[in-house]
């Protein structure tokens, strides 16, 4: 694996203002704090079911979303808090969903694994491993069909690569040159199974070759490397050149889910990755390069802590769904009332047909949506 680290960093750095760089940190810090507090709320019995934290992988979601536009579709798996919030889903409503409240993104019906918000084109967390890839491919087909100015980013764990759905989706996407970016978050484990125990190969970006698709390994602990790779893949997709497979080399610091003792890995391994933790490595870089002062970093950390606190308060105060709701909204035509605060962002993918800007020739160079 050769990751052109310095090169990509330099590239990405050029196109970003100091504010933008700081914002990347803020977003990662927010996700970290959100997940830490989620763990605490789970322990308190306010969140139930399966709950998979994103801790450690923040650079992937934040880096990727920083070069996707509001209109781009995102699809992911059950480990979905990070992508949802990074995509712009209101974190209050995410926390409310984890609490199972009526104000949650999915009215409290989805829970941690099934966040969704058409308002920001976050098209779902799916709990069937591999299940999101065909759907993401279909969204990309709709984009191509309507000649819209957007792309699809499909996130999934390296464990999903073994599923037939991965294979069928990549073949179709390449055959039809769909505007989609397949993003493997290779955190080295699928539950307790280390990659080498479940896959004939240890790298996954190489799988792209089987479909004559470009594939690339990316340092998933480096938000700028992620940003760069996703930005380039997005441009390819928008230019009609079809899909790209990106393998983000990353790590989850927490167990698979809240009920996993994580005995399958060594403390030493965790420690090695701790040194690459984006929340550890990125702030010093900002300081060294004169982009922010230590105090600003500390201030941001304090701010996000307050914001997450507000999310918990919001969730706690929110009403439960009424038992009478049980049979509602199964069929189209029976439409839920939208919470007022969501306002304009509420339009569904289908009703916002006028929304996506008409397709334009993509710029030959330069990041989009940065």
């Amino acid at each position: 694996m050769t990751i052109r680290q310095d090169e990509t960093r330099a590239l990405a750095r050029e196109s970003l203002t100091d504010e933008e760089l700081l914002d990347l940190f803020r977003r990662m810090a927010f996700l970290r704090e959100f997940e830490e507090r989620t763990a605490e709320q789970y322990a308190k019995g306010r969140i139930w079911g399966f709950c998979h934290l994103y801790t450690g992988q923040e650079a992937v979601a934040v880096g990727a979303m920083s070069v996707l536009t509001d209109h781009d579709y995102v699809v992911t798996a059950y480990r979905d808090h990070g992508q949802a919030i990074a995509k712009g889903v209101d974190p209050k409503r995410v926390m409310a969903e984890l609490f199972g409240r009526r104000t949650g993104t999915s009215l409290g019906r989805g829970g941690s694994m099934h966040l969704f918000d058409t308002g920001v084109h976050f098209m779902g967390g799916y709990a069937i491993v591999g299940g999101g890839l065909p759907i993401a491919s279909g969204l990309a087909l709709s984009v191509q069909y309507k000649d819209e100015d957007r792309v699809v980013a499909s996130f999934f764990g390296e464990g999903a690569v073994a599923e037939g759905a991965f294979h069928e989706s990549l073949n179709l996407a390449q055959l039809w040159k769909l505007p989609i970016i397949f993003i493997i978050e290779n955190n080295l484990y699928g539950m307790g199974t280390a990659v080498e125990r479940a896959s004939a190969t240890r790298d996954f970006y190489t799988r792209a070759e089987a479909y004559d698709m470009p594939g690339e390994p990316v340092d998933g602990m480096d938000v700028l490397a992620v940003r760069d790779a996703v930005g380039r893949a997005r441009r390819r997709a928008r230019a009609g050149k079809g899909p790209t497979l990106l393998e983000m080399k990353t790590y989850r610091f927490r167990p698979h889910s809240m009920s996993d003792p994580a005995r399958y890995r060594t403390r030493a391994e965790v420690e090695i990755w701790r040194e690459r933790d984006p929340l550890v490595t990125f702030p010093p870089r900002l300081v060294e390069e004169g982009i922010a002062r230590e105090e600003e970093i500390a201030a941001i950390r304090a701010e996000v802590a307050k914001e997450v606190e507000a999310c918990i308060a919001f969730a706690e105060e929110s009403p439960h769904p009424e038992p009478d709701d049980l049979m509602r909204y199964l069929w189209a035509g029976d439409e839920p009332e939208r919470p007022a605060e969501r306002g304009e962002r509420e339009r569904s993918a289908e009703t916002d047909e006028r929304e996506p800007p008409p397709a334009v020739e993509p710029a030959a160079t330069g990041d989009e949506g940065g």
Partner: protein
Amino acid sequence: MAEITYREALNQALHEEMERDERVFVMGEEVALYEGAYKVTKGLLGRFGERRVKDTPIAEEVIVGAAVGAAMGGLRPVAEMMTWNFAILAFDQIINHAAKIRYMFGGQVKVPLVVRGPQGGGKQLGAQHSQSVETWLVHCPGLKVAVPATPADAKGLLKTAIRDDDPVMFLEHEILYNAKGAVPEGDHALPFGEARVLHEGGDATIVTYSLMVAKALRAAEELAHDGIWVEVIDLRTLVPLDMHTVLGSVRKTHRALVLQEGWPVCGMASELAARIQEEAFDDLDAPVARLTGAPVPMPYNKRLEAEAIPQVERIADAVRRLVG
């Protein structure tokens, strides 16, 4: 009204709906260049081009899954399964995704998807090509299921299926493709959930759907010669299910036979028997009878296959036992 085949009626519905609504498109194995393994998509590629008529790889899971995604993206995909037997490879996308997405995401999105194709036995295609899949679909909340028995219904129900905002599983019968019948031209869309009484009578009710409707009618004619008058009800859609019409008839005849081609255990016949006795117990003069396909994988040999599928004579006998 023109006399056309079931196949042509389906083809007409596709032509008209694609003409009417630019969001409608067709995808599946062999649907474009080959014009469908059963020629249901004939002429579509020529008329609408590759953008709207798409040949796919042999990969049912992504065919259905991509159709689900496209529907979420605002299109109205019609995904053809070459036969419904192969849709079993896509059950994850149908059951775990298409059926659940709207509800589980709090009603934020619609999945206006049609999955269509033939099912059923009778052409000596053997165990892996002769199944009836309706039980697997009706069991799962969130899917509508249509089972047209005539060319007119094939057209009218397919048009409604395409216009419907929910996922519709559209089960054609392979044996019916060449069946002819009068079909209204133009905008003939039939409401879902309205069964039809096809043969009136006071002695017993046969409740059925798809290919078995024709067999039930022939049995009814045969029984009429013996002075036994049966009412034949064609359900047309299984979800939604028109219990009103079924119960109305049973309250009149006091005897019901539910007839289906597929396997008995947890079949539609069981569901209907359970519901009829539940809701019209005191009106029944005899237990609700079921006549179904035999509970074995479909054999290839012609005689065995005929034995495995309800035939006219056996339907008539079942009614005789019921009224006897």
